[in-house]
């Protein structure tokens, strides 16, 4: 149920989550409050489908969620090892302040999917979770590893088959290919259905960062699931799509371009957006 509610997705969606800056007592200005009031009135204008009204506490660092087992004062854990190994002399004033503040805060338990391992990648974890069906994380993760292996194998074949000059251009690290492919698939602008005068108009709207990432991953997965030949396995198809997206070709990139074209076509409706 967590998400950045500020201007993301459909305005009829009713989840409002707001995480205030953690403990920045010094920087708690009237600006944040005015923003809150603005957003609040904007949401009040919409149809009040507020399924889950979240009470937003003005005190810094407290987010109250209705059904969380943790209290509002619990902060998210910081798992990065390097954050702690940094010597105190090199810290800026802000960082020292933040360090001191964290000592007084209660911290949630680290989730089971996160470790301090070097092999862990948040994008890969998110993609694995999206691929998962029915809670079968073991299968999803194995598919993911097989995909990355397939990508690596294909690239190595290409590498060995290429001439000396071309070998420098062939990218063999599957993680960079994965990240670059998803980045290439991210749309810049999206369409949102807005109800005006009894009709729903597709209005072009700028997308938040995480919405873009989500759409790229979602398109990739749906494309691989639906357009797969019957006997082909998911890792093979996914590796194929990733390599094509890496080279800015393929159906997912086409879908992104279609989205952009639609947005361009509907740009007259852009003033329907009020946020």
């Amino acid at each position: 149920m967590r998400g950045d509610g500020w201007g993301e997705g459909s305005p009829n969606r009713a989840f409002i989550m707001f995480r205030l800056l953690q403990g920045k007592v010094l920087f708690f200005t009237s600006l944040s409050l005015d923003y809150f009031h603005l957003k609040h009135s904007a949401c009040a204008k919409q149809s009040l489908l507020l399924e889950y009204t979240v009470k937003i506490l003005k005190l810094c660092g407290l987010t109250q969620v209705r059904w969380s087992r943790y209290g509002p004062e619990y902060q998210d854990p910081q798992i990065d090892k390097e954050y702690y190994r940094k010597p105190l002399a090199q810290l800026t004033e802000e960082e020292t302040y933040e360090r001191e503040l964290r000592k007084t805060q209660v911290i949630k338990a680290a989730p089971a999917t996160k470790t301090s391992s070097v092999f862990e990648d948040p994008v890969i974890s998110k993609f694995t979770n999206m691929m998962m069906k029915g809670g079968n994380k073991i299968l999803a993760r194995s598919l993911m590893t097989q995909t990355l292996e397939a990508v690596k194998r294909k690239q190595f074949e290409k590498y060995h088959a290429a001439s000396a000059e071309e070998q420098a251009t062939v990218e063999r690290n599957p993680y960079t290919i994965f990240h670059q492919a998803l980045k290439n698939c991210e749309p810049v602008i999206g369409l949102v259905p807005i109800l005006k005068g009894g009709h729903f108009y597709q209005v072009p709207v700028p997308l938040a960062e995480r919405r873009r990432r989500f759409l790229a991953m979602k398109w990739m997965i749906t494309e691989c699931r639906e357009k797969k030949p019957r006997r082909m396995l998911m890792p093979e198809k996914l590796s194929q799509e990733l390599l094509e997206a890496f080279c800015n070709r393929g159906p997912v990139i086409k879908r992104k371009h279609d989205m952009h074209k639609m947005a361009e076509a509907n740009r007259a409706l852009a003033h329907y957006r009020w946020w």
Partner: protein
Amino acid sequence: MAAPSVSCGAAVPYRLFLAGRVSFAREQGLWKAAASGLQTGTRCQILRLKHSPAVTTTKNVAALRRESYTVDFIKKQIEEFNIGKRHLANMMGEDPETFTQEDVDRAITYLFPSGLFEKRARPIMKHPEEIFPKQRAVQWGEDGRPFHFLFYTGKQSYYSLMHEAYGKVLHAEERQDQLRAKGLFSEKSKSKDLIGSRWLIKEELEEMLVEKLSDQDYAQFIRLLERLSALPCDAAEEEFVGRFRRTVTVQSKKHLIEPLQYDEQGMAFSTGQGKRKTANAEAVVYGHGSGKIEINGVDYLLYFPVTQDREQLMFPFHFLDRLGKHDVTCTVSGGGRSSQAGAIRLAMSRALCSFITEDEVEWMRQAGLLTTDPRVRERKKPGQEGARRKFTWKKR
């Protein structure tokens, strides 16, 4: 600043600490302890275990109007309480002079054993200040003219406090200007213990002023105080600001680190226990080893065939750069594979605390390794198919 109010203190309802201010439906003579006429007060405020925003039960408006307690009534209650305390001390065979509130509580639980699960429903005998909510005495004289000049604002204490604070701000700014004019002004920031203390929360302020405040009022007040604290203040102003700050404990001090134990061979070891959902684990971490982990007599590679679980076992050691340096023997029962892994991780982290420095313990705490995960399976509710899933809605 605060208007003359009837002296009734209530237990401070810290939102952070989730204590409930409880007082019950008034029933005459229900929990009469020994010789004292104990009467409990008003409505009940329920705080759900799952940290939902506080919800009050539907108020009986007519009953609320009868709530005003006169000064004499409260005085009588206090006298009765004191007499009752002395009787109780005599009954328990203790000295009435040195009978503290804790002794009173113990005596009451002994004399009135209650099997009720709700702790707040059990018999209590507390000082009337804690039971009856603070109220205001009459704010106007016999001629009907109010005493305070801000009475007609509706929130006289709040506005007079804001007025005072703003006066101080202006005063401080004036002084700052004078210093600047003289050239004695220095830009050094004040070393205030901003982290060791926090501002009052809204409930605490409401209780202090004996007045209802809105969120905007509270935010406005805090902004003004921050503005005041940012200016160079003298001792009186610092004291004024200090009245609205409360100290915050440093979290890591709450952990008790067990000392190392030594077995017959002289090898240092330490035990730790961990829980996750319904899994319980106990881990023994040895000081010197080769990174071998044995769970219920089985090697960890065989016990946890899934990579994710093994990564969880590796997490505390990798975090502290002690990957191949310790041997672990653990026992685990209950739960599923993931919760067993989580339980063992917590047990190992706790055991490791004995081997490392205090700073590293604090790092582990901030990485979330030392917190028991409170998430458990949510129960199924009647009228629904699962915990959240509702039955299929059928139009007819």
